[in-house]
């Protein structure tokens, strides 16, 4: 779950990470003017949206007086960026910057540990820095079980040939960021840029936080303190109509899961089981050169109607030529019930199951019964002796003549 910049900064502030003066979110021109008065100097006003490209879109404006701040706030609050209306406008003091740095903590899935990344080239995309100036990047993994000490951060930052007071200040900020990351179940905590001002102080100019969705329960207290309501989903983009319709299919019937879909632009519709199996299948389709039209979760024994409605939804999606129905071995979902639902959905959509279902590979409970149904309708199916990878390959091969 993504945080707005002002929420990220409020969280950082609780751990002693220095913020610009003011740093308050305003929801009206009058509120912005009042914050600018408190700042009593030049200010920057930033649109609070969960999307990039704010500067280019006119979502970041500068003001030298409280009156100008009010004007800027009016413009920003009326501006939609990439389809996102602003949550508010962050008003902060502006001070001359001497140098910009980057500090980030994220999760390294391969190492199964968090990794801290630092650079003395902040303010730009860190991936670009890693590619063009790898000597300006330092990183180290750390344990989530042991406390993160300032010393660990110091060792890391010293790799960038930074010393003296600058090293001390940066280390304290980096260590605090690691503590935020561990304490709040984050998948990303990033300060970019972290500015060294001309007077020697460091301040966090921009910050990003992503919280693991599964951590929301254990993080209720901080979410409440930051004003984030339990029902706020905060997806990376607004759901598409296809995804909204999928959620409606799922919500219409309490039995099992079918309808939790994510839209892609391919031509092979997927009815695939949830969890690791579906990720594996999705990757296998791609590896064979296939183009998935959607990601999907189906499982927990959905009703025939639910599987049918999901199938109809996927087949309605423009550009979908066939569907592949695949899962890992299942014990909690009946193969025959899914087979009935999918075949019914295909027929009710006006197609022949044998033409529209590229492959059916769900081994598990009641599979013999399921296979009888599939055979009856001439649908190609396979059991667990055919790997998920191979089944995905067969589905992709059928797309050639679709």
């Amino acid at each position: 779950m993504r945080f707005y910049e002002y929420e990220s900064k409020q969280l950082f502030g609780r751990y002693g990470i220095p913020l610009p003066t003011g740093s308050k979110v305003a929801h009206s021109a009058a509120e912005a003017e009042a914050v600018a008065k408190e700042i009593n100097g030049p200010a920057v006003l930033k649109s609070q949206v969960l999307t990039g490209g704010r500067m280019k879109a006119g979502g970041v404006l500068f003001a030298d007086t409280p009156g100008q701040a009010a004007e800027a706030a009016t413009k920003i609050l009326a501006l939609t960026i990439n389809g996102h209306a602003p949550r508010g406008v962050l008003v902060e003091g502006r001070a001359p910057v001497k140098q910009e740095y980057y500090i980030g903590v994220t999760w390294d899935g391969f190492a199964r540990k968090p990794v801290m990344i630092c650079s003395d080239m902040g303010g730009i995309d860190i991936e670009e820095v890693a590619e063009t100036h790898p000597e300006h990047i330092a990183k180290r993994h750390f344990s989530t079980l042991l406390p993160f000490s300032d010393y660990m951060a110091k060792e890391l930052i010293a790799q960038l040939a930074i010393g003296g007071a600058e090293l001390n200040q940066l280390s304290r900020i980096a260590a605090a960021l690691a503590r935020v990351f561990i304490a709040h179940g984050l998948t990303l905590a990033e300060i970019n840029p972290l500015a060294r001002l001309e007077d020697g102080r460091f301040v966090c100019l921009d910050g990003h936080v992503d919280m693991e969705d599964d951590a929301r329960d254990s993080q209720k207290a901080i979410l409440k303190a930051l004003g984030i309501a339990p029902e706020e989903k905060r997806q990376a983009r607004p759901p598409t109509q296809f995804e909204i319709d999928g959620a409606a299919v799922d919500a219409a019937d309490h039995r099992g899961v079918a309808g939790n879909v994510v839209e892609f632009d391919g031509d092979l519709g997927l009815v695939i089981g949830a969890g690791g199996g579906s990720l594996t299948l999705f990757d296998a389709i791609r590896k064979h050169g296939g183009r998935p039209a959607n990601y999907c979760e189906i499982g927990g024994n959905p009703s025939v109607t639910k599987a049918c409605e999901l199938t109809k939804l996927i087949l309605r999606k423009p550009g979908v030529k066939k569907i592949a129905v695949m899962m890992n071995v299942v014990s909690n979902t009946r193969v025959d019930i899914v087979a009935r639902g999918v075949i019914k959905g295909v027929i009710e959509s006006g197609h022949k199951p044998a033409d529209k279902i590229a492959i059916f590979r769900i081994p598990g409970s009641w599979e013999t019964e399921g296979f009888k149904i599939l055979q009856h309708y001439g649908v190609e199916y396979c059991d667990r002796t055919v790997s998920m990878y191979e089944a995905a390959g067969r589905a992709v091969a059928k797309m050639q003549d679709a």
Partner: protein
Amino acid sequence: MAALFINVEVDPALAKDAAAVKKLVEVCPVNIFAEADLGLLAIVEKNLDECTLCELCLQAAPAGAVRVKKLYGDREVLVRTD
């Protein structure tokens, strides 16, 4: 749309027996049976394909009075014979 996979038949005499109708309505997990006017049995067509083949209806009724028919494969009929 008519059911594609399952059909259920009930003896006319049983379909008029209010107590038996109540029992069938109670046992079916997917609401294939309903009580119509005057306690008569009604088959809920739109739910037929949801049949889980649990055979509870067969056990709740006298032998042979309820038949669950598969409309695919070898068109097997589930019926209690004892």
